């Protein structure tokens, strides 16, 4: 695909994009906004009057715009969560990895021997397999500073090929049993350098870690840059010296990289078949499906968010509609004077509608685009303990927010505009003329 292919999508690609309901909504809304702008441009002589009417009651305008900003901002955060989850999960599809966990869920662990079993039984199918065990260590008083996993480093670098690790650092990590690999954002956040030590104490394992930073990785955008990987053997040896080796010998889960994607379903079934009659039966699935489980813990979040979004839109329509209704009620005489001076009904309708759109679009731009720019600048994932790779609002999501603000303005403005246009001039002027 050439650069021009990327910038000039084919009709088939556009059709594919339009199949997504959100993309279709944004597309239709952008077209409607374009039409609205052209209509508004035909009234350019009155923009000064329109904008002054928007700000006429500053407190009311500020409250309406403020509520739009807050609602749009919250909506952006909720949508960003879904977007990030989906992007993070779907990005895993490309790496041909499967995860073997206890059939009772990932709260339980699988024995370490399963790693060698998989490597032995399915040597021709796989690239490598590694234990992947959650340590859950505290850093001083910090309960969840970042995620830490015990892995087999030699296998890890074969399996997680998308991680960029300088070669000399990689070798240093492989060769130091107490060495660790950390994401570059951990290093940035905490000022860690190669050679620094990270003391961790876990509530799960009785063996505290004294890790030395040996390597720092960078990974693709959808992957967390705030994870610490260390030698599984270091933990295992330590546990054997403590409390009769409690919790020793477990792999957490086993991550396996397959040679071919098409073999993954069969391999999953075979691994589970191998362990079916053991004391620790397993459930093996693709890494994508494994990651999706975490999203499922939150229930049907998209539906909840959609319902919240609908409620937010309804509230916004009411708030903006009430603002416009009050504005028109206060200006009955003024609007009647304008009609007396020669403003036809259609013109009064347009002026009030543009005013309503301006009110909500100001809030929409600040709320939707502002939240997007804020999240681009401010790294929220820093406070998610490494569980959220990144937290951002995509441009389509921001444009969806702006579109919502546009429709809110239209829905709330039409009744007010219709009312303004239908004011009987004589009654409106009362006894003035």
């Amino acid at each position, binding site marked *: 695909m050439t650069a021009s292919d990327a910038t000039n999508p084919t009709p088939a690609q556009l059709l594919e994009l339009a199949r997504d309901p959100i993309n279709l909504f944004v597309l239709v809304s952008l077209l409607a906004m374009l039409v609205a702008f052209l209509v508004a441009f035909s009234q350019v*002589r*009155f923009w*000064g*009057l329109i904008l*002054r*009417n928007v*700000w*006429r009651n500053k407190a009311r305008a500020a409250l309406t715009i403020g509520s739009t900003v807050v609602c749009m901002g919250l909506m952006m955060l909720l949508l960003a969560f879904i977007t990030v989850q989906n992007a993070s999960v779907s990005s895993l599809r490309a790496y041909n990895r499967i995860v073997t966990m206890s059939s009772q869920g990932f709260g339980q662990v699988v024995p370490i021997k399963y790693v060698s079993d998989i490597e032995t039984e399915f040597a021709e199918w796989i690239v490598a397999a590694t234990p992947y065990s959650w340590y859950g260590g505290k850093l001083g008083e910090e309960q969840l500073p970042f995620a830490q996993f015990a892995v087999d480093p030699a296998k890890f670098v074969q399996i997680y090929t998308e991680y960029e690790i300088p070669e000399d650092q990689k070798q240093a990590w492989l060769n130091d049993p107490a060495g660790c690999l950390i994401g570059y954002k951990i290093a940035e956040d905490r000022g860690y350098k190669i050679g620094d030590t990270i003391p961790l104490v876990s509530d799960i394992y009785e063996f505290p870690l004294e890790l030395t930073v040996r390597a720092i990785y960078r990974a693709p955008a959808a992957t967390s840059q705030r994870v610490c990987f260390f030698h599984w053997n270091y933990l295992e040896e330590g546990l054997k010296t403590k409390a009769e080796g409690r919790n020793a010998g477990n792999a957490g889960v086993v991550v396996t990289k397959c040679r071919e994607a098409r073999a993954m379903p069969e391999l999953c079934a075979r691994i589970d078949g191998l362990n079916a009659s053991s004391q620790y039966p397993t459930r093996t699935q693709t890494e994508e499906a494994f990651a999706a489980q975490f999203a499922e813990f939150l229930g049907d979040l998209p539906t909840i968010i959609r319902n919240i979004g609908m409620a937010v839109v309804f509230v916004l329509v009411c708030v903006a509609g009430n603002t416009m209704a009050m504005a028109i009620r206060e200006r009955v*005489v*003024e609007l009647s*004077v*304008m*009609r*007396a*001076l*020669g*403003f*036809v*009904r*259609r*013109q009064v309708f347009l002026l009030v509608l543009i005013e309503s759109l301006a009110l909500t679009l100001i809030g929409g731009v600040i709320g939707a685009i502002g939240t997007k720019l804020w999240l681009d600048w401010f790294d929220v994932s820093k406070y998610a303990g490494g569980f959220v790779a990144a937290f951002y609002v995509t441009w389509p999501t921001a444009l969806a927010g702006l579109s919502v603000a546009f429709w809110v303005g239209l829905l709330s403005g039409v009744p007010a505009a219709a009312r303004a246009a239908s004011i009987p*001039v*004589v009654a409106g*002027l009362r*006894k*003035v*003329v």
Partner: protein
Amino acid sequence: MTGSDWAIELREVSKTYHRDQFEVPVLDRLNLEVEEGEFLALMGPSGSGKTTLLNLIAGLDFATEGEVIVHGQDLGVLSEDEITRWRGENVGFIFQTYNLVPVLTAFENVELPLLLTNLPRSRRRRNVATALKVVGLGDRMDHYPRQLSGGQEQRVSIARAIVTDPYLIVADEPTGDLDRHSAEEILDLLEILNREFEKTIVMVTHDPRAAERARRILRLDKGQLVGDDTRPSHDHDHDHGPREVALASSQVNGEERSS
């Protein structure tokens, strides 16, 4: 259009309002002819129908029966949009409570009806400046209504009424909210518009002193014309020349709000 030679002609005009299930007759088979360039005052007690008559002449309302012909145009045959555009081109309005747009400056208020025309910006600015100078507010263009006295607001309102160079000016109690001094100023201006600019003016007023400035006084009662006094031109005590008025106007620029 009709072949009427009158500036305003009413033929057998009746107006009835519907209030719930009741019919309220306001004007009853009224006939009236007004010459071009006439300054007409409508007087009468409350409920006599003078404002309704003014509304019909100004094209703000339609007669229930009869014909209202202004500047040769039968208003009864025009659609809502047509009569609105006709008003914009032919009628200047002066209201008792000024009715300026509070968020616009004096200049922008006067410019408002011109925004409906195709005049270029430079021409609009020139016309607005001229209109404000005529009413003696050339130095108050950037002031908002809240920064002006009642008399000054009314003069801005007059500037707005004349900026489109309308055929007819209608004024409802133009001095009703003003102190005596400011009222005299406004009446002086109306006289100038009538005499120097040859505008046909129809003014509703309760104030006999205001009515005296008109050349013709019509008295209404219960929807009927009960009096029609035409007086010789320019025979009253307030016959100031335009320069005197402009000078007088400039002297009241700093006055307090009257109400």
